């Protein structure tokens, strides 16, 4: 390469660099970025269309919604590392806590800002078994019977799996007069029946549904119903255990980002719409339990949810901050139950 072509190459590089590094001019149309977790893909696809229409009617402005999906913890890390999220809609409060703690981009008491612990919809953990329930699985106790294999993702890498683990723990407590040692023994026994610990909830669903592994899949209720739509309802059945946990996937505005982007109004409207009758109806349609079921337009969507004995993370585990550290932190209970004796 001679000197001239070399200098031309450098000029080209110098021109290309700012584009590659994202110094694009701001888009004329305003954009709202929602950083969400995996199983909300279908819900937010519908909800975003609803919001765009709603916002146009309200303000006359066009708005574009960008949603990114992925494991809840990974998504939280992206926001910590600088992903410009206007709102976060994640699987568990501790992931948003982590954003608040690491970046101060939203206040520590963010969860008090919206009704119902900032969770516009909830879910719970149920069992998905093979059609006809060949192993006769009725409740948590049946999962530790000899020969039963349980599929659940790894609580260390999957937010959803932490709800699974805590639901099992709640059963262990209830069955043993609130003795934490016995609850731990139950959960430890349960994880001995787990042949594969996938890194995320969708991975576990694949392992169970497509690879044919295991007799029961611990799944979010909405994922269990979704798998019917995906794989046909002649293959699986849902079993509702005697006790489960109220899973509250929370939503929050990332204050520092909306200030910078000038999107506070839109972000607020976006989250509030989740609590509106239309938003609640969409949540119910996508198998999330709406927090205001009475406002849902299609009553059949609500009636299919069974009444269950649900414990909450705050009452039984003293909140996410405590549960996270005690059970899933480095050297926590989950690490302990896998230690070879």
């Amino acid at each position, binding site marked *: 390469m001679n000197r001239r072509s070399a200098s031309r190459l450098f000029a080209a590089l110098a021109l290309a660099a700012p584009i590659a590094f994202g110094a694009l001019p701001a888009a004329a149309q305003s954009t709202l970025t929602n950083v969400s977790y995996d199983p909300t893909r279908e819900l937010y696809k519908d909800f975003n269309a609803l919001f765009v229409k709603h916002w146009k009617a309200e303000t006359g402005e066009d708005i574009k919604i960008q949603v990114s999906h992925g494991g809840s913890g990974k998504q939280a890390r992206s926001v910590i590392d600088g992903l410009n999220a206007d709102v976060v809609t994640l699987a568990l409060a501790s992931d948003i806590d982590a954003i608040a703690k690491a970046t101060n981009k939203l206040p520590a008491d963010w969860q008090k800002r919206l009704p119902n612990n900032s969770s516009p919809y909830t879910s719970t953990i149920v069992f998905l078994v093979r059609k006809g329930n060949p192993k006769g699985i009725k409740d948590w106790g049946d999962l530790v019977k000899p020969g039963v294999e349980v599929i659940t993702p790894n609580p260390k890498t999957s937010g959803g799996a932490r709800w699974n683990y805590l639901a099992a723990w709640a059963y262990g407590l209830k069955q043993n007069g609130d003795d934490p040692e016995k609850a731990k023994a139950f959960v430890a026994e349960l994880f001995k029946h787990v042949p594969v*610990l996938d890194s995320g909830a969708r991975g576990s669903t694949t392992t169970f549904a497509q*690879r044919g592994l295991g007799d029961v899949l611990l799944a979010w209720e909405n994922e269990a119903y979704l798998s019917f739509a995906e794989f046909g309802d002649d293959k699986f059945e849902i079993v509702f255990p005697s006790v489960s946990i109220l899973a509250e996937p929370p939503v929050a505005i990332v204050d520092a980002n909306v200030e910078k982007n000038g999107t506070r109004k839109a972000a607020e409207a976006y989250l509030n719409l989740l609590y509106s009758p239309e938003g609640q109806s969409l949540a119910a349609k996508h198998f999330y339990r709406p927090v205001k079921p009475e406002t849902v337009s299609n009553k059949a969507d609500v009636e299919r949810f069974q009444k269950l004995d649900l414990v909450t993370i705050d009452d039984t585990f003293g909140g996410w901050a405590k549960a996270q550290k005690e059970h899933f932190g*480095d050297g926590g209970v989950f690490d302990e139950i896998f230690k070879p004796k």
Partner: protein
Amino acid sequence: MSRTTFRTPSALPGFGLTFGFTWLWLTLIILLPLGGVILWAGSLGLERLAQIASDPRTLSALRVSFGLSLLAAVLNAVFGLILAWILTRYDFPGRRLVDAAVDLPFALPTAVAGIALAAIYAPNGWIGQWLPFKVAYTPLGIFVALVFIGLPFVVRTLQPVLTDLDRELEEASATLGADRPVTLLRVVLPTLFPALLTGFALAFARAVGEYGSVIFIAGNVPYVSEIAPLIIIMKLEEFDYGAATAVATIMLLISFALLLLINLLEAWTRRRLGHVR
């Protein structure tokens, strides 16, 4: 290696420029990120580092990762050599197709490879259902994935050397009375050995860091089929960047030591086998 120093530059012009460019590039692309990892890990303090390094679960994951990667690289070295030999020495219908297929593990997104392998080797998969033992979701599954992704490294390093290999050497060997095994063992293989080692090292290094394809077929059961990169992901998932970089640094040190060893071995064989340096 030429004995170029700053005082007696090569006859070729532009040494200063290329030297500076090499270091700039190396620093930007490799040394800075790695330095960041090591710095971050170093900020933890020795006590915490020792604690992380001696955690039995981390140790078990390191054993799984490095042990299986070595085994996979050995297998790849053997079969990669045979494959490279066939591809360069014989002409057969479909040779170009096979040749192109060797590159697929390079090109395929690793997650796709992992899912495909898991589907095939799962207890209800095409191959898995005929096997009396489990492959997917056991350490054997990890091994299969590592063999898959490592193969092109060996084949592609050996091919050019095999093509350049002087046929006359083999003919001379035969004329001097050596039979075929002797020619192969004493003439062909020694010439190939340094390249084979390089291919082995590349396949090994790739396997150690592999995450995407392994994670879908591994089973990820602690102390059994958990790989070291997964431990790093877990630490990240706990927002414990320090511990994650610490495990990364440990992997880096072990890899560096092993690769250095392989490089020294390669240099030694080159010298011993009379290559012109």
